[in-house]
């Protein structure tokens, strides 16, 4: 059996202008990396068709060990407190190769 290890997957849907801020959070917490996907959608900030930068979303994905989840979320919370429109949802996940994500 291939061993897998529990981790937390943080998903953040945000305007593309926040990509740099989010990757800085990932780097500040020394995560092993991060993944970004272009997205569109709709929410309290209105329609995000993806055609203009002001109306384009990203889905920012960050895998962290459970014991670091809270510190990372605290930084994400700061962005939200400042008024940024973010949809944040966290999922339990199992990774291959624990050492890759907890370095």
């Amino acid at each position, binding site marked *: 059996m291939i061993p897998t290890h529990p981790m937390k997957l943080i998903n953040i849907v945000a*305007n*593309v*202008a*926040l990509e740099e*801020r989010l990757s800085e959070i990932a780097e500040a917490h020394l995560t092993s990396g991060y993944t970004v996907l*272009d997205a*569109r959608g709709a929410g*309290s*900030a*209105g*329609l995000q*068709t*993806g*055609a*203009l*930068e*002001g*109306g*384009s979303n990203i889905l920012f994905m960050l895998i962290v060990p459970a014991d670091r989840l809270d510190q990372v979320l605290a930084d994400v919370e*700061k*962005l939200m*407190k*400042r*008024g*940024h*429109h973010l949809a944040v949802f966290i999922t339990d996940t199992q990774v291959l190769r624990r050492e890759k994500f907890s370095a």
Partner: protein
Amino acid sequence: MDVSSLLIPAVLFFALGFIAQVIRSDLKFPPDLAKALSIYLLIGIGLKGGIELSHADLGHALNAVAAALVLGFGLPIAAYAILVAGRLDKLNASAIAAHYGSVSAGTFLTAIAYLQAQQITFESYPVIMLALMESPAIIVGLLLARFSRNGARGEDDARENHMGELLRDAFTNGSVMLLFGAMAIGLLVKPASLATITPFYEVLFMGVLSLFLLEMGMEAGKRIGEFGRAGAFLIAFGVAMPLIGAAAGIAIGHAWLGFGEGGVLLVAVLGASASYIAVPPAMRLAIPEANPSFYLTLSLGVTFPFNVLVGIPFYHYVIKNLLA
């Protein structure tokens, strides 16, 4: 007001996109295509501005620069005052105001196509003014927001609270970089060398614009669904503010800059139009508390179609009567 003057590719492609959306066609554009086309158009405008600047009269150019700054700083303040008078909260008012101090390149280029189709000549200074008007508008927006927040926010570590950082953002804004960078290139490079890229940036320009406007017509049409959220006061503002901006532009273009019919129309459009490319991402970062739905609905869904379909010929009509 001669309606047949609207039968030009720029306006008709915009209308086609708008109609496709309104009748709920399943016509789709790849989202990145609009971004690619707008990069192309901003570079094209910048190059054109640089070339014009290279053989511009210094006195006239400085005058145009001053006029651009007056419009760029003045209009957002006027917009802010109106919005706050209408009871909009100050942060949303600041963000929307910034959009109206800046310019919609799509509208400006439509006005150029409109003039060309009627073989009306125009001064080249407005192209230079366009590039200059992005940053002041963003700066005013930031200052108004800072003033509105009034120290309400305690976290001094937030980037949004460092004025220097915010000013930097106003000048390193992506669209500003493209406009100024291309302008510098148009100014620095010898004509013979520039000619190697001319077929790409000039010959195709109006064709690319038509494709861009088709897509922007669709984008504008999609915002109609958000009118309800914005409310009647804001929608009315989206029609009234371009009239105020156009009036300011006409006054400045005519009385101060002394331009002819074509040049005055372009300055009117600088005043009347609202940014939907450069300013929204800047406001996302600088005034996150404002609702993007408001400023995108207004600039893209109300003011843009109003200017393209009604404003340009109307301002032109007014200017012709004024000059007659």
